[in-house]
């Protein structure tokens, strides 16, 4: 064997290793295998059913199991698989036809990449012919997927928070007439809902004043389960007001999630009379934020608002402490995972953020309508994943999958009926909140579903509204 042959062999084997590594299934806490149902002898009295096995109800889920947003995608995948396991163990879903249908949840990994999310969504819609599409973990991927769901006319539930997922954005540069106020020129990501908040008007009135703009309030086929950025910003604004802070700086990720969170902040903080002295950005996947933080330090703000997810949020927090800031740091609900605390360690102490109730479920008053559901979810999830940490993200997926299970049971798998069922969900007690969907609200959660949480000694602690000023 001469050198060239050896080279070839080595190159091929390296390629193989790389391919195998790339294709290796993303690390899964081995799901509890579904026990094989005991084989029953066919009942002699009944003739064999004339029809085949009742059709399986299929949910296609796209989440970020790997990449920058894996701290979101992994609990989402596990919560979805857990429900499939529970439903099928109980025999399946009893459809409107009275038959028991098996549930199949097909999970695809988008590796935190928008292009891959679209490819995965297309595969689920065209090849697997799923009855409802769910995901993705991140806002940019969800927005891209929403377009596919709209095209295919298959109902979709996103697990990401950006309002742009369900509320179509106005084209940047569109001039919008505001009744009684000067015209507004829309910039990227702005929606009717945003303008309504910004100007204290109603969406319908704004639309009536601008009959030429052919953008609806919601995308008809798209829903989402995480809390909107508006109530999140509203809780933050309440906190700053209670603390008497008038000037804050903002550091946000430069993608759809950050954009939406920053729009929410701009609208709600303006209402609360809080000035935003710096609106700094970073790129998804950045590791070093000291340049931006240095600039912010120079402006002497009274507090810092961060719009980021766990990995970047933790690095920002560590570097924020390194630079010796003495002001409060408030994140949004993007950091609601144990990964944030594990990474930022002691530097996480003192961080405040608004989030759904799942992180502090055991400290909620018993009268809370969600408490029972939350505690049950925590117990099931811990058992299913062999003690993986609880995060709010798994809850977003739980809500989406349970909505699908509920609707399959009510109306079967026909796309238009499932969509109508999603839109008609009222008082649906989930993990992220109590949902009341409607024709103009495809999120259905109000500010009341959020609490302000503080990290103390590596634990999440519920901060009641009357204690804001002491924290």
């Amino acid at each position, binding site marked *: 064997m001469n050198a060239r042959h050896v080279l070839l062999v080595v*190159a091929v084997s*390296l390629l193989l290793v790389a391919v195998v590594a790339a294709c290796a299934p993303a*690390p899964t806490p081995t799901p509890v295998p579904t026990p094989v149902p005991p084989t029953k002898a066919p009942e002699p009295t009944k003739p064999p059913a004339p029809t085949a096995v009742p059709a399986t109800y299929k949910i296609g889920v796209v989440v970020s199991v790997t990449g920058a947003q894996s701290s979101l995608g992994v609990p989402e995948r596990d919560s979805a698989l857990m429900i499939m396991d529970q439903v099928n163990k109980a025999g399946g879903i009893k459809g409107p036809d009275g038959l028991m249908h098996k549930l199949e949840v097909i999970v695809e990994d988008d590796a935190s990449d928008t292009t891959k999310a679209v490819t995965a969504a297309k595969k689920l819609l065209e090849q697997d012919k799923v009855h409802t599409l769910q995901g993705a973990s991140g806002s940019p991927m969800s927005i891209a997927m929403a377009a596919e769901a709209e095209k295919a006319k298959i109902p979709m539930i996103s697990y990401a928070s950006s309002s742009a997922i369900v509320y179509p954005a106005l084209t940047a540069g569109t001039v919008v007439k505001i009744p009684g106020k000067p015209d507004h020129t829309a910039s990227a990501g702005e929606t009717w809902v945003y303008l309504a908040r910004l100007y204290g008007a109603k969406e319908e009135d704004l639309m009536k004043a601008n009959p030429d703009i052919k953008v609806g309030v919601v995308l008809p086929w798209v829903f989402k389960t995480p809390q909107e950025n508006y109530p999140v910003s509203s809780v933050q604004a309440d906190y700053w007001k209670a603390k008497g802070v008038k000037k804050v700086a903002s550091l946000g990720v430069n993608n759809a999630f950050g954009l939406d969170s920053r729009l929410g902040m701009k609208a709600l903080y303006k209402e609360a009379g809080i000035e935003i002295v710096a609106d700094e950005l970073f790129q998804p996947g950045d590791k070093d934020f000291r*340049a931006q933080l240095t600039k912010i330090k120079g402006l002497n703000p009274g507090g810092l608002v961060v719009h980021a997810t766990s990995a970047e949020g*933790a*690095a920002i927090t560590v570097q924020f402490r390194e630079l010796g800031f003495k002001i409060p740091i408030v994140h949004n609900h993007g950091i609601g995972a144990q990964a944030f605390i594990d990474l930022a360690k002691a530097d996480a102490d003192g961080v405040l953020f608004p989030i759904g109730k799942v992180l502090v479920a055991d400290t909620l008053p018993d009268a809370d309508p969600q408490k029972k559901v939350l505690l049950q979810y925590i117990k099931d999830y811990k058992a299913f994943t062999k003690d993986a940490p609880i995060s709010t993200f798994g809850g977003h997926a739980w809500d989406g999958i349970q909505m699908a299970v509920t609707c399959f049971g009510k109306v079967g798998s026909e796309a238009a009926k499932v969509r109508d069922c999603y839109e008609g969900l009222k008082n649906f007690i989930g993990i992220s909140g109590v949902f009341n969907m409607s024709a103009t609200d495809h999120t259905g959660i109000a500010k009341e579903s959020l609490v302000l949480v503080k990290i103390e000694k590596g634990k999440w602690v519920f901060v009641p509204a009357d204690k804001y000023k002491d924290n």
Partner: protein
Amino acid sequence: MALESQLLQYLFTGVTVGSIYALIALGFVVIHNVTGIVNFAQGDFAMLGALVAVTLTTRTPIFNRVFVADFDLPLPLGIVLSVLIVSLIGAVLYFLAIRPAKGASIVSLIIITIGAHFAFQGLALIAWAADPYGLPVFTRGGPLEIHGAILTRQNLWVIGVTAVILLALYLFFERTMLGKALRACAINRLAARLMGIDANRMALLSFVLSAAIGAMAGIVITPSTFMGYDSGTFLSLKGFVAAIMGGMNSATGAVVGGLLLGIFETVGAGFISSGYKDAIAFIVLFAILFVRMSVGVRKGQSQFEEVGM
């Protein structure tokens, strides 16, 4: 914060960030000098160094939570062991992928290192999953404040480690027989072999040395920036830009290139826009390649011939 202290802060941050680029660039230069190869798995040595150190010093579930690494070694011991293990990985890379391809063109060898990069990244994903990991800071305690700018203890560690490695490399290359042999290989491999220097052993040594430098770089930055299986790519790219800035052949050049790149990036992000942070590195790369190419053309020879030996 006055402009003066703000500038000083950018300088501190830039030097810290740049020190890492410098260390990665040093790894590039050591291998390139001796073998002519541009090792694109350089950043992965940093990733592996950090993740091995994390695994040795803290309780870490690995391989899909099948095993839990519970060595709980003290940090200094974990760091030393990690550097040794990664050096060994450097040797394994040389024996498995580079040595068998002896006689292949430099471009083929470079492509092999790109393959190695993907292999390392894939193996790290299997071993440590997709989560980022952190290490505790080396010494606890408040930061230094100089004219209103903050310099943390970990920053000092980063800068200090870079300085010590640079000094050690200098002494090694200038004052030891082995180091001189390495340099001889770099200058003229044939002549070095005629002098009785084993070129293969020198190539192996260069891989081990770069792996060790890379591992150390990865370990010192992990307390403040964290490390995940995919962090190697970004480190390789930035280190490569720094090495090119420094001329690809000189250790001092690599360090100066790294520091300059770090400072450019930080100042650019601070004064222009944080959105341009990464763009700055690549604009610098393009500018330098363009200038070097035109100089090369004027000299009547392409850079590739020079590199190809």
